[in-house]
């Protein structure tokens, strides 16, 4: 449905934010996973026509996105990362205004749409309150409400769960899951669980390039039987990193639990069922290694 081919973006200061990104994104929820600074937001902004890439082409269905940005905007819902709001404006008033800007001119239609979305996002009770006073979770729900105005077929949500507490995050993901399967939803995030929970397809973006793409289940399958775990004291970590391909480590009760990737069982390690997190960290580890080698 959404086809990106060879999309590259180089900022004037020479930063190559996107490097030949080619992706085919079908209907349904698509997770775009990557560390901070991987180029996710640049890609999201590019797809949303907020900035033009230096090279490449983007098509959405019949729309040539770069040539007909207005055609795309008519069917686009966009929730940017860290957005701000006007002071003293209520959720209802702002949604109503956004509905006007999105081309719903009939006042009665608009009222139906806005009231519906306020209910759907659980903001009905606070519809008259100023958005500026909302909590992070409420604000994000407002953000998704405005993105859903006008039944868009392409919905872009950029890092929506960053900074939400677990309960708010769950509520937000529920909301996203309910959007429906007949539209393209691109969820960009650096939180692996967001993607694992929701997305039938995903891609990993790092250093501006697509490192990995596919259904999470297949990707997890690709590392099955190759992930091993061991608990060590934290002083041992450098040795461990030198000896093995450590894909991730995390603290547990003062010690460190390391995961390594290996075709055969290393000494002292126990097999562990790899999760999406291991896939993700293995991919990032591979991305970093050539860079580290070059630096050394």
């Amino acid at each position, binding site marked *: 449905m959404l086809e990106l081919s060879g999309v590259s973006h180089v*900022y*004037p200061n020479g*930063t190559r*934010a996107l490097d030949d990104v080619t992706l085919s994104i079908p209907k349904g929820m698509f997770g775009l996973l990557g560390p*901070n*600074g991987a*180029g996710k*937001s*640049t890609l999201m*902004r590019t797809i*949303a*026509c*907020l*900035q*033009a890439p230096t090279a490449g082409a983007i098509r959405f269905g019949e729309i040539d996105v770069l040539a007909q940005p*207005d055609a795309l*905007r*008519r069917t*686009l819902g*966009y*929730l*940017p*990362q*860290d*957005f*701000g*709001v*006007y*002071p*003293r*404006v209520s959720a209802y*008033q702002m949604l109503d*205004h*956004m509905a*006007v*800007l*999105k*081309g719903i*001119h009939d006042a009665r239609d608009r009222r139906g749409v806005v009231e519906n979305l306020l209910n759907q996002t659980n903001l009905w009770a606070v519809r008259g309150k100023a958005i500026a006073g909302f909590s992070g979770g409420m604000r994000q729900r407002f*953000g998704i409400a*405005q993105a859903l105005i006008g039944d868009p077929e392409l919905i872009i949500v950029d890092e929506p769960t960053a900074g939400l507490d677990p309960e708010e995050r769950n509520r937000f993901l529920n909301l996203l899951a309910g959007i429906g399967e007949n539209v393209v939803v691109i969820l960009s995030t650096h939180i692996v669980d967001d993607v694992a929970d929701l997305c039938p397809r995903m891609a990993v973006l790092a250093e501006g390039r697509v490192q990995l793409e596919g259904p999470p289940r297949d990707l997890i399958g690709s590392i099955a039987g190759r992930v091993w775990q061991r608990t060590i004291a934290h002083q041992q970590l450098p040795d461990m990193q030198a000896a093995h391909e450590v894909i991730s480590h995390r603290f547990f009760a003062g010690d460190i639990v390391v995961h390594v990737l290996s075709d055969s069982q290393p000494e002292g390690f126990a097999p562990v069922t790899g999760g999406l997190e291991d896939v993700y960290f293995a991919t990032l580890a591979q991305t970093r290694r050539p860079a580290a080698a070059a630096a050394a």
Partner: protein
Amino acid sequence: MLTASIATFEIRYQLKNPVFWVAVAIFFLIGFGVAASNNVSIGTPGSVHENSPFAITIALALLGLFYLFVITSFVANAVVRDDVTGFGPMIRATPVGRSQFLAGRFLGGLVIAILGYMAVPLGIALGSAMPWVDPETVGPGGFATYAWPFLVIAIPNLILSSALLFSLATITRSMLASYIGVLILVMGYLTVSAVLGNEPAYQDALARFEPMALGAIGEISRYWTAAEMNTRAIPFEGNLLINRLLVQAGKPRGQGRGGAATGSDSACAPQLWHRSFAGEFLDAVED
């Protein structure tokens, strides 16, 4: 329709803005003070009524100069708000046309500027009705006494000022720069009119081209008696008429995309807006 909806939102937004009400209070008090106090007056000789047509005309023309700062806070805010608050990306992801959007914002800001300026005639009317004011210094007043100069002096001035400041804010994209721009403008205006105002040779030119119409009012009323000042409405003819027409026509012009009807607002603003959008791509930072 779209433009009207955007303007309505803008008006409702500004009506909740404390700046609007503070400005209304200040300009109401100035109007009130000028009328209610025997010691304070602007441009009127002693025997002229506090609420005479002439006094109101002068007050509306002169105070407009100070009101420029208030207008800046309305129209410049309308331009920079999206960037300052961080709501801009959502607006720019909608299919709304830039010209219509700008036209709506401008129109809303203009209406708010006009509404706020009504505090001046209101203040004068109320001030001259105060019991301590010597009845000898108060004329009959009446709605038309206030409405006429508001129509021929204040509104054209407000349209010109708003368009000018809207453009200024669109170019500079900054509230502070807009205020500094206005400051320079006002100082330049005061200097030029102080220098030229003393030269009889420039009297005619000043009457025609001086944008706040003070020159034209001065020329018309140069030989008026106090009785005339108390009774005559400022005649909308001669150099004042030319001046008012020029004020409406002589503003920056260009081809606004989409050709939205914005009365006579500066149509070059949308183009500058577009350009500044292009500029934004350049300094967008990777996050």
